[in-house]
């Protein structure tokens, strides 16, 4: 009974537990110190409100709990197709390219020095691709293992940190006022990923993302406080591996090994989630006759995954991860993801408003807030021009393709039958 919920929670945790999220957390708490904890709580609260809205029980029949249906009915086909294609494809191609290379380095430097880091990155990419080629059941069964291992490592480190000497004699003292607005707002990006999974069309779909949010917020708060207690904030602020520094300070070599395990398992979890998310979205668009070049009911998830793996492999060989620009592209992709969440809130609010549901206007407020904050984050980035160019280009390309397809195939949109199998996704 609980298994679909566990799978959905684990899939929601995909990005949140990833090493990139931990880096953002470490740098964020160093920049804004205690105020960042407030920002984290506020960001989680906003995300929870968004989840409650897009998973509102009144929407369950209105599109069968599917994210694509919700967007199409609430925002229209063109915006839905454009933002889904742009955000899902950007994040699935760019984030794994960075994450896999990071995992390769972690394996090389923590576990086997003679093993080539790129070789390990490709090994992980191959493993995740094989899982997806093996089928949906294997993918969803593997996700709780990846997320569970990551959670366990982080929990052990947190408990060891609480019992350690620095918890009574912290190295960083939060004196004075330190507040960087763009870093505080960035806390919102840490909780992405809760917009996607539902355990079943018939059950309450709010529970898994809210559970994931609660786990993550608790762990983030604890880890952030421990980070400040164990490592001087000046060091955390400048570091590109703050999580490794904290782990090393808490448990020495054992801490490094635990953090290495966490990096590898959560990288697998994040890549697995992103592959699942993007291939399911594309398959659902294809199923509805809304994906160029696809006949209705032709669910080609495996083909999509193979394509993602080939492109990511090409990007890794091409050396994208070896360029500083990858961080800017990843930031832009995360902002596109936040914009998708904003559109989901808008669509949910609109449908609920039409049905006279109380507090439907929350959807419009949240959508405006998320869009405004995404704009602020893009504008305050040190490579704002690149970010705006990337977002505009991706959205223009996706909407151009979608508009052409809707013009070419205006006749019908196929509404797929309700899926009845266990652990139904979306």
């Amino acid at each position, binding site marked *: 009974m609980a298994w679909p919920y566990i799978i959905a929670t684990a899939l929601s945790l995909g990005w949140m537990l990833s090493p990139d999220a931990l880096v953002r957390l470490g740098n964020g708490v160093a920049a804004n110190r205690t105020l960042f904890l407030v920002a984290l709580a506020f960001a989680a609260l906003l995300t929870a409100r968004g989840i409650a809205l897009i998973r509102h029980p009144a929407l369950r029949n209105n599109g069968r709990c599917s994210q694509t249906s919700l967007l199409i009915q609430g925002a229209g086909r063109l915006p839905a197709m454009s933002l889904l294609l742009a955000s899902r494809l950007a994040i699935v191609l760019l984030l794994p390219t960075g994450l896999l290379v990071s995992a390769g380095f972690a394996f090389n430097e923590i576990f086997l020095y003679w093993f080539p880091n790129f070789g390990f990155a490709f090994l992980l990419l191959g493993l995740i691709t094989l899982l997806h080629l093996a089928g949906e059941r294997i993918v969803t069964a593997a996700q709780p293992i990846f997320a569970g291992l990551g959670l366990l490592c982080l929990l052990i480190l947190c408990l060891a940190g609480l019992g350690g000497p620095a918890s009574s004699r912290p190295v960083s003292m939060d004196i004075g006022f330190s507040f960087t607005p763009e870093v505080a707002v960035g806390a919102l990006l840490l909780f992405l990923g809760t917009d996607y999974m539902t355990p079943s069309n018939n059950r309450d779909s709010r529970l898994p993302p809210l559970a994931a949010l609660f786990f993550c917020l608790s762990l983030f708060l604890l880890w952030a406080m421990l980070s400040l207690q164990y490592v001087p904030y000046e060091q955390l602020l400048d570091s*590109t591996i703050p999580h*490794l520094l904290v782990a090393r300070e808490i448990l020495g070599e054992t801490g490094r090994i635990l953090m290495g395990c966490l990096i590898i398992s959560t990288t697998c979890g994040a890549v697995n989630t992103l592959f699942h998310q993007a291939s399911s979205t594309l398959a659902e668009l294809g199923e509805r006759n809304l994906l160029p070049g696809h006949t209705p009911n032709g669910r080609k998830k495996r083909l999509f995954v193979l394509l993602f793996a080939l492109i990511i492999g090409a990007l890794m060989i091409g050396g994208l991860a070896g360029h500083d620009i990858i961080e800017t592209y990843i930031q832009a992709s995360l902002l596109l993801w936040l914009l998708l969440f904003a559109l989901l809130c808008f669509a949910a609010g609109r449908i609920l408003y039409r049905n006279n549901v109380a507090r439907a206007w929350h959807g419009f407020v949240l959508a405006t807030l998320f869009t405004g904050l995404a704009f602020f984050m893009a504008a305050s980035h040190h490579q704002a021009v690149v970010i705006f160019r990337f977002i505009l280009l991706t959205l223009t390309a996706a909407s151009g393709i979608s508009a052409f397809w809707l013009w070419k195939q205006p006749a019908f949109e196929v509404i797929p039958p309700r899926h009845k199998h266990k652990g139904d996704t979306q």
Partner: protein
Amino acid sequence: MKKFTLLLLITLCFSISPTLAGAINLMEISELKGMLDSDSVVILDVRAGRDWSTSEFKIPGAIRASGEDFAEWSTTLPKDKKLVLYCA
């Protein structure tokens, strides 16, 4: 005949390039360790992107010098000092 000459020239270029590259010496880790505190050595970390950011191993005091910005930093370095570049 033209083709043969061209082929000969290409072969010559390929055979010369390793000789030229040989002018840049490779250094053992142990050798560098002994020079870390020396003022006559400038250590340049030429890694970029995640190659640099996700690595735990960074030589203290090394200057970051990305290959993309070679034209920028190459002119500012002291010519009288030994330059050590590392990428892994």
